[in-house]
């Protein structure tokens, strides 16, 4: 199963973000560890919300509000997508993340075929293909 780990840096002001060399190196080591363990599928860091925007769709009207957004402490700063065998394994990896202060990690499972209702799941079980490459699935 796949999980998304989202990081909420919990900063007072997004402009405050001046990471020290040590913290960056520690995060680099963490990312390498995830890669070397074969669990990391993707990761990205996000620019401050001042470079983003929000789009609301109320009453069929698209309203764009440019950043920065007010609730700085609750803003997402980046994410990892990892492959794990269980929620516990994903948690074990999350717990090893070298963050501190007010930062929070949120772990969420990503929807996959296998998460659909059982009747669909039964229908979705893998089946044999002809072994020939050009003909196969």
């Amino acid at each position, binding site marked *: 199963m796949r999980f998304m780990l989202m990081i909420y840096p919990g900063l007072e002001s997004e402009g405050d973000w001046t990471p020290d060399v040590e913290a960056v190196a520690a995060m680099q080591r963490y990312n390498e560890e995830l*890669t*070397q*363990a*074969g*669990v990391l*599928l*993707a990761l990205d860091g996000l620019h401050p919300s001042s470079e983003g925007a929000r789009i609301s769709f109320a009453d069929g009207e698209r309203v764009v509000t440019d950043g920065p957004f007010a609730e700085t402490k609750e803003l997402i700063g980046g994410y990892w*997508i990892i*492959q*794990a*065998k*269980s929620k*516990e*394994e994903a*948690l*074990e*990896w999350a717990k090893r993340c070298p963050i501190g202060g007010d930062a929070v990690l949120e772990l969420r499972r990503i929807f*996959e*075929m296998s998460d659909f209702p059982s009747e*669909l799941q*039964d*229908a*979705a*079980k*893998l*089946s*044999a*293909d*002809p*072994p*020939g*490459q*050009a*003909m*196969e*699935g």
Partner: protein
Amino acid sequence: MAADAATRRAIEAVWRIESARLIGALARIVGDLGLAEDLAQDALVDALRRWPESGVPDRPGAWLMAAAKFRAIDLLRRGKRLERKHEELARELGLALALALDGAEFDAVVNDTIEDDVLRLMCACCHPLLSTEARVALTLRLLGGLQTAAIARAFLVSPSTVAQRIVRAKRTLSAAKVPFEVPARDELTPRLASVLEVLYLIFNEGYSATAGDDWMRPQLCEEALRLGRILAELTPSESEVHGLVALMELQAARTPARIDAAGEPVLLGDQDRTRWDRLLIRRGLAALERAERLEAEPGPYALQAAIAACHARARTASATDWPQIAALYDALARRSPSPVVELNRAVAVAMAFGPAPGLVLVERLAGEPALASYHLLPSVRGELLAKLGRSDEARAEFARAASLTQNRRERALLEARAAACEQQPSWQ
């Protein structure tokens, strides 16, 4: 009780993350794979006994290593009192070495060479002395952290069969005094070839699992991919390792589209490509790029990955770059010739340049003993004959293919194709 179950799952998770490194480090220290695994398993038993009360420690890997070390000391003491078997003598030499180091020194030795330990473990598990079945079982057990029962379920054999394979494999390695080491530079590539073969075998066992199969089998794909990704980090300059990873990522990307709503297999050309996993395709293409950057003349895995990449890049089946695929099969046929590769080359040539040149290649395979009972040969031949309007011959080929396949659904499809030929006179 509920808390116990949660801790148990947490311990399983830690085991999955730590076991290969743990066994690898122990094997290097004690010089014996079997003993290393016993010690690691003992440490796991300790964790299962203690962590439900104490909670999972902050550094679970270090905890398990310490527990294994205590077990080793214990074993050494008991060994002295018991009557000594000759093999224990050899073990003790390794243990004595381990015991000479302690505390921080011990941790440093263990942590310094974690990567090498896992690579050594992979090479040992896939040692040429072992049978293919033994390599697969040992790899899943020692590197995948799977228990014997899980491996047995995945391969549809009894747990005792798997247990026996593992015991025998470990004995074989002990008896042959196989050194626990990363092969020297010039031997690394052939040894890696064995590791890659085992990983792809595990992958395919999961990938070709049939409907109604145990849920364990598809997990084999994930396990093979994980181990492949690990290996790619351990040996970043080996082109074929990236080639295999690319191949597995690209094939796994199609998993969500390989079955229709009724649970029947969907051929590549008919798959709903919007269901393909874009993330895995991206990873597969990146891995292929790495493989191709490292080697001007790509090996068989990189070539197969390049073929899979052609399919992955095509938004629709009709947009497939068949001339490129035919060229890649040419290269693959030169690099690792086999009748099955030739047959696939014929299909690609037919798709790229028309049924007639494809049929020429298929005819060459007619007397091939390896394909004598391979249903895809008459099936492909029938397809090309039908396209050329030679219906009578086509019908006979489809009927022959139907009689050869083991798959009920496929037989029905082929019989339908044969029947369709009868309704279409050959002059049409």
